[in-house]
């Protein structure tokens, strides 16, 4: 009982110290307000304002109508270029797409000679090239079909496919980017806060002071973990309500409570990671470098930046041990798809197990490192 009491007060001390640490408080506020807003609104959907050029060698009413079929926000106004100049422009990075309409295109079409339009795509623009090519192909073929139906060349198609975008009917990117940004901030900040608190204690010599009292290394680490986790949890909850829902107008399909429970589970692993990194780093500067090397890959591979399905199979298996991946996937299911506990429980179990494993490991290391304080 006395032990819980000590852990509680030590943790409370942590919160009081944090309140007076202006740098960390500023970082906390920035991370949960402006940073996710910037990230969410900065990244537009993949095909946005794409640069496109037409090399029109036909110059017929049809080809001219094709050139006017592209609209913002997906496309910039079409630029007409001289035939043959497309590749050079593309080398210079001026256009991502160049559409080449051959001479006599309209005449050949009317004659049923099935003429060919070439669409040059800069395949080094990975995010835009694939989807943009689909857009352009369907815009061009819709336009050509409308023309063909108009001159009675073909019948209206009989079978059509209706595409429905589930969970996100308007293909809104702000919601996705906002939530991913929030999750990223939670990861960064929790690790940095906990680790920095640990190292500060060591650099100021207060850790020895604590250890000379009737406290075990376990108590000290747990106090840090609960206090920092609690601070981040409250901040994340506020950010979810006031920044995500309030300012960005993001709708949360599932239970906010469930999301916060998942967050709390994840925070255990993230704080344990902070303790772990602080234990192996010899100074604050080394810690800062380590955090970048560890947290950045954890975020990149979590499935927030790019879909997990894009990773090679061996890597997909490997990233199963990343708590960030489970947190990301549970959060997406809850926030975007309205999933309940019956759906996300496996992810919660994963996070709990990984958190316990990491915590035990860092506690062992922490104890060992204390024996080496000189």
């Amino acid at each position: 009982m006395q032990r819980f009491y000590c852990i509680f007060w030590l943790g409370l001390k942590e919160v009081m110290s944090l309140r007076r640490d202006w740098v960390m408080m500023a970082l906390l506020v920035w991370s949960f307000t402006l940073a996710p807003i910037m990230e969410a609104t900065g990244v537009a959907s993949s095909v946005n304002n794409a640069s496109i050029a037409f090399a029109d060698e036909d110059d017929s009413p049809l080809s001219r109508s094709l050139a006017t079929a592209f609209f913002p926000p997906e496309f910039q106004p079409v630029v007409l270029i001289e035939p043959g100049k497309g590749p050079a422009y593309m080398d210079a990075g001026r256009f991502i797409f160049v559409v080449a309409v051959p001479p006599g295109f309209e005449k050949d079409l009317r004659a049923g000679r099935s003429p060919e339009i070439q669409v040059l795509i800069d395949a080094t623009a990975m995010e835009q090239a694939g989807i943009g090519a689909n857009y352009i192909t369907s815009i061009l073929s819709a336009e050509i079909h409308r023309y063909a139906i108009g001159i009675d060349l073909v019948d209206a198609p009989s079978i059509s496919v209706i595409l429905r975008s589930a969970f996100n009917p308007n293909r809104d990117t702000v919601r996705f980017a906002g939530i991913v940004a929030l999750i990223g901030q939670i990861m960064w900040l929790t690790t940095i806060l906990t680790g920095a608190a640990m190292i500060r204690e060591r650099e100021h010599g207060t850790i020895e002071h604590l250890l000379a009292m009737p406290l075990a290394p376990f108590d000290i680490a747990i106090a840090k973990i609960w206090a920092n986790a609690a601070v981040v949890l409250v901040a994340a909850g506020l950010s979810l309500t006031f920044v995500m829902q309030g300012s960005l107008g993001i709708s949360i399909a599932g239970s906010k409570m469930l999301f916060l429970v998942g967050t709390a589970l994840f925070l255990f692993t993230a704080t344990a990671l902070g303790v772990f990194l602080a234990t192996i780093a010899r100074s604050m500067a080394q810690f800062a470098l380590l955090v970048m090397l560890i947290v950045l890959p954890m975020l990149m591979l979590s499935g927030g930046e790019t879909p997990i399905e894009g990773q090679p199979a061996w890597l997909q298996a490997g990233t199963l041990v990343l708590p960030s991946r489970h947190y990301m996937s549970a959060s997406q299911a809850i926030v975007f798809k309205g999933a309940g506990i019956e759906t996300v429980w496996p992810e919660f179990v994963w996070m709990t197990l990984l958190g316990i494993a990491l915590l035990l490991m860092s506690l062992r290391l922490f104890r060992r490192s204390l024996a080496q304080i000189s």
Partner: protein
Amino acid sequence: MRVEGETSDIRISGVTHRYRKHVALDSISLELPGGQLVGFIGPDGVGKSTLLGLITGAKKLQSGNIDVLGGPIGNSGHRHRICPAIAFMPQGLGRNLYPELSVRENLEFFSGLFAQGHSERDDRIVALLAATGLAQFEDRLMGKLSGGMKQKLGLCCALIHDPKLLVLDEPTTGVDPLSRRQFWALIDAIRAKSPELSVLVSTAYMEEADGFDRIVAMDAGQVIFQGKPAELKGSDDDLEIAYRRLRSQELPVQSEGKNKTNVQIEASPVIVARGLTRRFGDFTAVDNVDFTINQGEIFGFLGSNGCGKSTTMKMLTGLLPSSSGEALLFGNPVDAYDRKMRREIGYMSQAFSLYGELSVHQNLQLHARIFAIADREQRVSELTERFGLEEHRHTLATALPLGIKQRLSLAVAVIHRPRVLILDEPTSGVDPEARDSFWDLLIELSRNESVTIFVSTHFMGEAERCDRVSFMHAGRVLAEGTPAELIAIEGVESLEDAFISILEAAEKPVSVVAPEVEFGTKSQASRRDFSRVLAYARRETVEVARDPVRLAFAFLGSAILMLVFCFGITLDIDELEFAVLDLSQGPESRAYSAEFAGSSYFKATSPLQSASEGRDRLVAGEVSLVVELPPDFDRKMSTGEPTQILATVDGAIPFKGETVEGYVSGLHQSFLSEYAHSNGKTQIDIARIEPRFRYNQSFESIAAMAPAMPAILLIMLPAVLTAVSVARERELGSVVNFYVTPTTRLEFLVGKQIPYILIAYANFLLLAGMTVFLFGVPLKGNPFPLAVGALLYVWATTSYGLLIATMTSSQVAATFATAIASVVPTIQFSGLLQPVSTLEGGAQVVGSLWPSSYFLHLNVGAFTKGLGWEALAPDILALACFGPVLTLIAALCLRAQEK
């Protein structure tokens, strides 16, 4: 080097210096004649260091004027002219030296700062090392030297360029008495040899000031006395008493050096050490130490910094396990995990180690709670009163004066009424009155409450107040006994003399002489060449090479992140799981499903029974697409009636959703044309639209990703490393060498930058190698423009790191600020995710002013697009502008003096 027609006098007039609201110096005016040894005395925090910093030009003058060597130090032209004639050794042992460098490398670096030729340098180094007895430690790393040796090395580095003005800020604090004596002997020898040398020195040991030509006593930012030591002393026995008298304007209450109450101490051992030994690697910090401390005794532990006092104390508290031997507390072995035993001990570590962010009251409460003291409130208020902390109750601990902080630490250490107190140098840096009141508290605890006190100190005056003392040196206890006994055994006058004679017996003292270098040898300090740049570059290279973490970050970091990014950020999505709700169950509907299942994009899962099941599986993330074929699909297909298929795509991840939609449209079209074909109705392809993926026909993301990633990695890592190296100098204090030597801002920055340009370039080659050999992306274009452009790019990115470092104060801030300030613009504006041609307005402007945009185009152009000189020339020209411009801006932003 001499500047003609100058005077070596120092004239200070009306100098005031503030740190925020705190006034460190309060309109000081002083005249100091040249060629003298002038001492500044007073406890910590009275403004000694600030004044010395201003005189040397290390700190920027805020108001007033100081004439040094014939001109105002506030004038940057004059300062630059005379700084080759000034040497400054800042406070803190070896604070301006480089721990990762050997003794010789340190000296070579300082020599390089004054542009000395190789033969001159070697002559000087040999002479200095021989004179100070450091010659045999030439190759030892500075960080591994003892306190006395660090101090000698500091002096050697200061003397390497024959200064006319030598400024030493507390050179002897924390050094053992023997080394201290040797140090002053060395200074005297040097002064005898070159009488024109002016030496300014500050000290907290008043007794040292006896031998100075002149002393300046300071208190609270003001000069309270200046003149000859004898004048200050007057009728008093020693300078400390005289100083106190001066300060309080009245005779202090005579607090005797000895304890008045000489109670008989019972011989019941409380702390016993038997053969206690502690090794760190091959270094023995504590070597076979024995002693016994009895109940109620004040046992003093004397020794220099680093002699093993703290390590011994930590072993006794159980903080550190011993390597061999045993430590007993109340007859039981000390056990690190025994919480009961810890309740018997109060420990106060060397530095102030309470929570500065908590108030006095909160600190006391917290500790009372941890010790679960029953009468908590009562105990806290009792201690607050007894230790004189009432008026500071709600002050933050960090804002307390040092003397009060120490009292608070003691209050915290005794809060649980321990029977043993272990105090590690509790009074260093505290002013004499505060020290006295602290000792009164200790004596009271010992005499009235029978608390056993084990205290370490390097003040002889305090040692004299202990019941028994023990001398420790280099890990061993050399002597033990009551102060009177020790003085009697050695047959000397004072405890300090006793310590010195014991030390001299223990180890043969190295003799020190003035270095045999002709003082006044003309060194070409003002010669403009690359010597200083190279000195910095060489030193930085050695330091990085010896720091495993930074080295690993520099090379492994980029390799690891390259792997993660290239494997992790792939946008090729295939084998996505999908499910079909086939309500028609006819041949056509099955053919339609087969079209999807047969493609490489999709992988079929078990068919659905209902629409709601499809929804559930989408929610659970089991499938990314649900295709619903209506009941009349087959019938309408055969009759040619219009019918609709519903494809529901998981749109939660927008990019993935849109990609899947594209796949669905494509497969639907190909189903239709196949259907038309198989029914003989050759559907006329009215026109064909032929997409051609240029540069990357198979449209694999790795071909685009692998050459794009170096653009971000080669800005983030080099910029962070460079920024950290500059911030580190500032944090560790060695930046003072840049402030007080002739090094210009550009020389300092470029010198530090060169090693990182090389590291970054090696990284570029590593990443290019990985791109070709690991990720199999061939270099289709011309490698030469790429090689040139990459060099220009890493020049630009390291310069960017320098620029950010000039705006941050700590290494942590430098790391995160640089990481954010390099990664965010690169991702947003350089075309990494969104091509530059799709950016609008402001974003496009930022993109065009950002070096990564050009390097990205260059690297992708050379690798994937197969471009050559002509197409890449604009990028190279743009990149060539960034490095020089950013370095110049950084040089303008860098402060050449401390604030």
